[in-house]
């Protein structure tokens, strides 16, 4: 049994209504094509009709769907940008899932591959793509292959699909890095300009879309914008997959309506397994937020005041040392720099080192540390240094008391083990 299966909706809690738009209610078996078509019917497409393309993109815009890979960019706007282009674009479904603690893209591809493939096929029909490239985590590439084989047997799709196993590494999931991986076998980001929608793979306009976003697209294409907006918050409509990791009774992947009370979201994983002091929200690029403030807030970007990123929520125990945990995470993030840009290549390890010294309670140049964090922001070809800077600032804020303790040579934590599966390299 793979880790994906183990993590898939293990909790069965009464009280919190379970939502099953994307993930099946029977958690153990992937949804077969026959079952998928029984439930949803075939997704009707008229790629040669400009009227259909226009109406469908309009519906997607009205749904208010935004990317579920982390950047939360409007899917409708991205599609609209590609509609305006001549030439035959590529569609890349991004299931790289470089976030070490995130599992949701893998669980989705393992359980509901056909929704994702439907969404990719719909996107391809809308933009006139020549080929769809599924870039998926190696743990689920076989599931995706099997699902595509089912579809080929009944000639379901008119666009050609290709499966590429994703590269490992934190930055490998960034859109331009995915294009770079597919095209040249190099999983590192390209510069910011031009936009992928203008010039991506082979210099052609390229739609790079997270696999969960595509699954939602497969549903909006059938049921429309009003249906999509029946769940979720008014300004952040729909459902999303979350990975609940860290100090939970039953960590795993769950589907939630955006705007649900955060404490109810945490209950899906059986709630915290121990008193918690903070939540890391969004991903390793995410933002630490005090648990007390978050629990009663709606689980949405506006409710929590932080981006939901790729839907990762890490519960951090009250007994843990936030400084130590941050030092571990930042060392990992520093190790994941592609090393292309000086400020990231040299700045992140230096920052990580200072944080480690703070964690050990030895004297540091704290002013240098905070200045470096400010200085790296906006000075990379991709968003890696910006994400790390955001993470550290929130940590220094939320764990401010513990930082002061450490600067005075003390640590108030009773638990110094990590609550996260950070792939560290033996430092700690």
């Amino acid at each position, binding site marked *: 049994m793979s880790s994906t299966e183990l993590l898939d909706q293990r909790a069965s809690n009464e009280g919190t209504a379970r939502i099953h738009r994307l993930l099946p209610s029977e958690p153990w078996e992937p949804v077969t094509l026959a079952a998928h078509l029984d439930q949803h019917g075939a997704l009707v497409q008229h790629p040669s009709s400009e009227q259909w393309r226009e109406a469908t993109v309009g519906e997607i815009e009205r749904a208010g769907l935004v990317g579920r890979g982390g950047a939360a960019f409007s899917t409708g706007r991205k599609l609209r940008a590609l509609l305006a282009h001549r030439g035959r674009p590529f569609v890349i479904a991004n299931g790289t899932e470089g976030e070490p603690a995130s599992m949701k893209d893998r669980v989705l591809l393992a359980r509901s591959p056909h929704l994702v493939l439907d969404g990719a096929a719909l996107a391809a029909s809308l933009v006139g793509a020549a080929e769809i490239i599924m870039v998926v985590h190696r743990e689920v590439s076989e599931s995706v292959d099997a699902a595509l084989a089912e579809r080929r047997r009944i000639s379901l799709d008119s666009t050609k699909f290709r499966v590429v196993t994703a590269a490992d590494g934190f930055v490998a999931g960034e859109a331009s890095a995915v294009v770079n991986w597919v095209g040249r076998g190099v999983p590192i980001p390209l*510069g910011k300009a031009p936009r992928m929608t203008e010039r991506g793979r082979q210099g052609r306009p390229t739609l790079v879309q997270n696999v969960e976003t595509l699954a939602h697209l497969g549903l909006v294409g059938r049921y429309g914008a009003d249906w999509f907006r029946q769940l979720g918050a008014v300004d952040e409509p729909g459902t999303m997959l979350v990975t609940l990791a860290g100090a939970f009774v039953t960590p795993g992947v769950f589907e939630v309506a955006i705007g649900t009370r955060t404490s109810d979201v945490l209950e899906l994983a059986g709630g915290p397994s121990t008193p918690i002091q903070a939540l890391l929200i969004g991903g390793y690029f995410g933002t630490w937020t005090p648990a007390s403030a978050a629990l009663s807030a709606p689980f949405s970007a506006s409710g929590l005041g932080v981006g939901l990123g790729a839907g990762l929520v890490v519960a951090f125990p009250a007994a843990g040392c936030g400084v130590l945990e941050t030092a571990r995470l930042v060392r990992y993030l520093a190790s994941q720099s592609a090393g*292309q*840009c*000086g*400020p990231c290549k*040299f*700045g992140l390890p*230096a920052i990580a080192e200072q944080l480690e010294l703070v964690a050990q309670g030895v004297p540091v140049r704290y002013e*240098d540390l905070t200045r*470096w964090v400010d*200085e790296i922001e906006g*000075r*990379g*070809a991709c968003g890696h240094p910006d994400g790390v800077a955001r993470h550290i600032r929130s940590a220094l804020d939320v764990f401010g008391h513990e930082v002061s303790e450490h600067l005075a040579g003390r640590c108030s934590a009773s638990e110094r083990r990590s609550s996260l599966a950070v792939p560290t390299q033996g430092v700690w």
Partner: protein
Amino acid sequence: MRSQVVLHIDRIACDGRGTCAELLPELITLDDWGYPIIADGPVPRDLGRLAHAAVELCPKMALQLRASEGDTRSMSKSTEEWRQ
């Protein structure tokens, strides 16, 4: 009417030679590893010629002048304007 221009660094190309900061210390400083930090905002008109020189003399051709956000005129056009 002249458009506003901003300095842009190709961070992948830049390898921290520091030429730009020597030529244009008013707008460019170096971080602790020798990589440029650019002051926020557009290039003031009276520094246009110096900014252009810094762009021309970057050994990695990593420094550019670009039309500021929202200005659709091309980069080369605005660079051209500084020459005049």
